[in-house]
């Protein structure tokens, strides 16, 4: 697609190739920019969390208050409310780790110089989803036994002839729909948001530098303004997606633990 606003070769919009940024090497095991960001995020989160935890006080300081607010949100609003007050405790570290990792990496999308959402590369959401997938199946099978786990997928009181159909649909839900959508939702949101930001940035730059007349050059301001607005919108999306991911994780775990589906 070429836009004819200038005399030159025209504007080439960013494609999915933008997200493939190998730094060292190439191919399946290349060290990429999102890998660096992922390592950076762990290197930031872990020391900060340990530092805050070491200096925990009953009466919180400002920094502790912020961290603790996040922790209490994940612990109570997500874990306790979804899984239930009796059984949510073993899952707190899982939910909290997920939330922190996703939130920080999503915010990398709009931090200058970093400016790349790690989770827009499908590999990372899939990694988190594999963990969730394993956790909710293992927890469910441990609670109900392997046979019981599959048995309870079909709700009681269903007419006999429809049971296979429902069982098949539930099987797809448990083993395909849930993990696939969980990973894709996160990836697609970050991917689309970043693409939008890149389009506005590149488009603005192109219009400013190579516009054929003054009007086009001035109009680039609109593009940059939208870039700024979308940046703030992406902060919101970053928080929301982290919340949705842990909420769904908690929901899947709660569903596997529940007596009846």
């Amino acid at each position, binding site marked *: 697609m070429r836009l004819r606003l200038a005399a030159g070769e025209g504007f080439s919009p960013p494609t999915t190739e933008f997200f493939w940024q190998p730094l060292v090497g190439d*191919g399946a095991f290349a060290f990429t920019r999102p890998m660096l960001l992922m390592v950076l995020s*762990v290197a930031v989160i872990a020391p900060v969390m*340990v530092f805050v935890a070491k200096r925990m006080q009953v009466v919180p300081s400002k920094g502790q208050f912020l961290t603790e607010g996040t922790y209490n949100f994940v612990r109570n609003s997500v874990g306790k409310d979804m899984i239930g007050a009796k059984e949510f405790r073993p899952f707190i570290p899982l939910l909290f780790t997920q939330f*922190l990792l996703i939130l920080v990496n999503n915010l990398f999308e709009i931090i200058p110089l970093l400016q790349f959402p790690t989770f*827009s590369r*499908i590999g990372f959401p899939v990694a988190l989803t594999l963990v969730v997938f394993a956790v909710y199946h293992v927890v469910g099978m441990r609670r109900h036994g392997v046979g019981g786990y599959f048995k309870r997928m079909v709700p009681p009181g269903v007419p006999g002839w429809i049971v296979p159909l429902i069982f098949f649909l539930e099987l797809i839900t448990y083993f395909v729909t849930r993990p696939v959508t969980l990973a894709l939702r996160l990836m697609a949101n970050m991917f689309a948001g970043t693409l939008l930001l890149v389009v506005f940035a*590149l488009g603005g730059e192109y219009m400013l530098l190579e516009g054929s007349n003054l009007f086009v050059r001035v109009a680039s301001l609109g593009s940059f303004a939208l870039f700024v607005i979308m940046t703030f919108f992406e902060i919101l999306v970053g928080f929301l997606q982290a919340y949705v991911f842990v909420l769904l994780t908690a929901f899947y775990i709660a569903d596997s633990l529940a007596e009846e589906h």
Partner: protein
Amino acid sequence: MPNALTAAVRAPEAESVWTSPILPQPGELIVGLIAFGILYWVIAKLVVPRFEETYAQRTAAIEGGMEQAEKAQAEAEAALREYQAQLAEARAEAGRIREEARSEGAAILAEMREKASADAARITEAAHKQITAERQQAVIQLRSEVGRLATDLASRIVGESLQDDARQQRVIERFLSELETADPNQVRTVATPATEGS
């Protein structure tokens, strides 16, 4: 920071299968798993226990504080009740004292009145007694006087000396007893015939 982005985009890219947005690159998958594992270990071992501990401590502290506040409130209420009881007691005592004073005053008044009336009665009695005594005296005096006069008169009329004491006394006694038994109105009438008779 459009420039950082554009620089990355404009860099010449080798055509690669990993540009596909939905094909997980194994390297990234592995790095993601390892990163998650490390962070999970740190959070689960070092962070969450501390947070939970503080959480429990704070809950305990808040509950303790509430307990303390409740205790203080109960104490304040008890003090208030005591104070009110004391106040009521003081009021009752004041009322009682006032009542006592009033009744005492009334008693004093009654006593005074009684005393005054007793005094009055006593004075009246004394006056009565005096009057009686005086009257008695007067009667006695009168009696002797009358007797003497009568005797004088009689001796003068009779011409006979009635100086004989014994007789004289007898006459007087008889006369007076007649006088006394008779009606005061008849005294004169009786006296007159007696005088005439004698």
